[in-house]
């Protein structure tokens, strides 16, 4: 049986959805995008163009929900399917868009460089429990106007896994889309085999900005999957109760579904988010708070109730170092998320309120992901009944190490974490240098980088991608790009 964790009863889910729908219809949303406003008006929503206020109708919400697909499939750079985001399938994605990186050598928190990004992409390509990449941080050695497209470019160049990304401006979308099309060969091929998910954020409370709503519309036009990232901050920009925050999250996310599905019915969408508790002592938005994680798991139940694939920023920590807090918050989030069946679980590698990536933490988190993926498979009998024969064998042979049953099920039944998880006895641990988890993560990184294999992209595709990126860079006065010198 696949173990499942639930926080909401169906009655409560229905009530939350119904309250959220009322809010969309009665209070409405503020949307700062003329194109979106006129589209909504064409579909019968009442729009006040003075205040940018839209009152939704029950009809457009129903239509949108009926049109939204219940599964989103992703395919890697080479066109192989990697994800089926549906039901209770779970996949892990590193936390995205960090401002800083924790320098593995000096322990310093600093702005990331292209060299860090390339290392990151290479490492992700080799982490078995991380199914997709994210554009995890912003290289600071390129012009800020290309920092969003350049990280997507680097990801596609160095790692075959699908990419969770997002644009910072309206203009950036085009070149990012062109890069994805270059990999697939055509717009239709990209629509048939999605390679990337774009994150699009409503603004709490109950608003869409020009940029993020336009990104959403542009994605829908090209059948590029989006995940809505609503961020109610409980007690600050949202009601303090978890239920109240869920109502807000539901309203904001449903409005996103409507915008996407009215633009192009059937376009792939993911019921995501990054809500947070608000810590009224430190003025911060803790991602590792248990209440944050509860809101995540609960809105995932609402998304499932609406038959939509789900996502959350949940397997991450607010610690500043790879320390016990980092481990406990990340593990708690990853475990709850896997048990709740959140389809795309975002967060590994991330520290400091989504603002710092750590490659060592990513390698450690890969093991947390491995353990929780095992947990999610639950307990099933495997030639265990009747039990008498295997016990007869045990009593006869004095051990089962080489029994057929053992050899058949050992690898499947037990997850063996990599070297960063310490399972040596203490004498061996001492003899091997009394290494800390940080030390072990560093040597794991070196090992992973050493075994890196380039992607299978053809020279033609590489040339086209390079051409696109160079043209974009030239617009902002850069005639060479840092990765060329690595």
């Amino acid at each position, binding site marked *: 049986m696949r173990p499942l964790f639930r926080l909401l009863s169906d009655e409560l889910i229905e009530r939350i959805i119904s309250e959220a729908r009322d809010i969309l219809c009665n209070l409405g949303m503020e949307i700062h995008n003329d194109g979106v406003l006129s589209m909504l008006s064409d579909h019968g929503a009442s729009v006040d163009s003075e205040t940018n206020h839209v009152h939704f109708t029950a009809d457009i919400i129903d239509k949108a929900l009926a049109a939204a697909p219940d599964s989103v499939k992703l395919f890697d750079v080479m066109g192989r399917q990697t994800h089926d985001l549906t039901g209770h399938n779970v996949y892990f994605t590193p936390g995205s868009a960090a401002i*800083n990186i924790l320098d593995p050598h000096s322990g310093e928190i600093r702005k990331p460089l292209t060299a860090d990004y390339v290392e990151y992409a290479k490492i992700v390509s080799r982490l078995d429990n991380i199914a997709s990449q994210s554009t995890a941080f*912003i290289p600071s050695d390129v012009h*800020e106007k290309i920092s969003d497209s350049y990280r997507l470019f680097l990801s596609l160049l160095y790692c075959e896994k699908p990419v969770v990304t997002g644009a910072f401006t309206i203009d950036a979308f085009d070149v990012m889309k062109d890069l994805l099309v270059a990999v697939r060969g055509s717009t239709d091929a990209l629509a048939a085999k999605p390679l990337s998910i774009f994150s699009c954020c409503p*603004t709490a409370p109950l608003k869409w900005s020009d*940029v993020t709503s336009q990104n959403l519309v542009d994605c829908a036009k090209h059948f590029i999957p989006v995940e809505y990232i609503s961020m109610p901050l409980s007690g*600050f*920009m949202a009601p303090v109760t978890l239920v109240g925050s869920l109502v807000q999250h539901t309203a904001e996310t449903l409005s996103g579904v409507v915008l996407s599905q009215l633009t192009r019915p059937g376009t792939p969408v993911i019921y995501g988010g990054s809500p947070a508790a608000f810590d*009224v*002592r430190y*003025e911060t938005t803790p991602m590792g708070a248990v209440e944050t994680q509860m809101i995540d798991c609960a809105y995932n139940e609402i998304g499932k109730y609406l038959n939509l694939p789900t996502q959350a920023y949940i397997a991450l920590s607010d610690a500043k170092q790879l320390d016990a807090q980092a481990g406990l918050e990340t593990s708690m989030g990853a475990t709850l998320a896997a048990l709740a069946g959140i389809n795309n679980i975002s967060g590994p590698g991330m520290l400091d309120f989504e603002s710092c990536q750590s490659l060592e933490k990513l390698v450690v988190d890969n093991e947390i992901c491995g353990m929780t993926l095992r947990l999610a498979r639950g307990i099933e009998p495997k030639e265990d009944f009747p039990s008498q024969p295997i016990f007869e064998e045990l009593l006869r042979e004095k051990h089962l190490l080489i029994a057929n049953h053992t050899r058949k099920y050992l690898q499947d039944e037990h997850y063996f974490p990599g070297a960063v998880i310490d399972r040596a006895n203490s004498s061996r641990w001492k003899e091997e240098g009394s290494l800390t988890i940080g030390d072990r993560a560093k040597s794991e990184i070196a090992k992973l980088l050493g075994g890196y294999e380039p992607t299978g992209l053809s020279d033609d595709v590489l040339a086209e991608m390079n051409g696109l990126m160079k043209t974009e860079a030239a617009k902002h006065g850069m005639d060479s790009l840092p990765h060329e010198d690595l």
Partner: protein
Amino acid sequence: MELLDQISLNLQNGLDEKVAVLTKDAIEKQIPPKEILNSGLIAGMNIVGRKFKDHDIFLPDVLLAARAMNGAMELLKPLLIKEGIPIRGKVVIGSVKNDLHDIGKNLVAILLKGAGFEVIDLGNDVPAEKFISTAKEENAHVIGMSALLTTTMPVMKKVVDLAKDEGLYGRVRIIVGGAPVSKEYALEIGADAYSYDGANAVETVESFFPVNS
């Protein structure tokens, strides 16, 4: 208990109506407005700030005190102006061009206002020129800028450079904040200060104004 102590105490407890009544009372009793401000309201706010830092009280308590402060300031402001006593300082604040993050900036604005500063909030997505022109028009003492994106931080430097070109630099203090910003960055671009949160922003802006000026 002395009236000004009572103002301070009620302000600490976030009782805005009571603070307003007591402030009116103090004005009627001819206590100099400056004394009401410094020994009553600001004294109370300083204690609130300290307690918040020590986690004795939480942010909502600070905002309640700030609301009481704002109410009392409405009563005192006309008198302070009449007597030519400068208000505590005028701050022009905003989130920089292309940055829509304004939660942190709003909080800083509320807390500064609560500490008795006059705050002109330009909202988000504010062009560099707008910070400068408003600071000039309003004779502001401080420009506060917020950036939450790596890509929008450079606007802060633009504002500092414009302030230099326009002869404001040094006269108007520039303070910056937001997740990607740091003390080092503030120094690098020539801003006067950096603050990591709202309470710290209040302390820093206060440090720009020597006591009894």
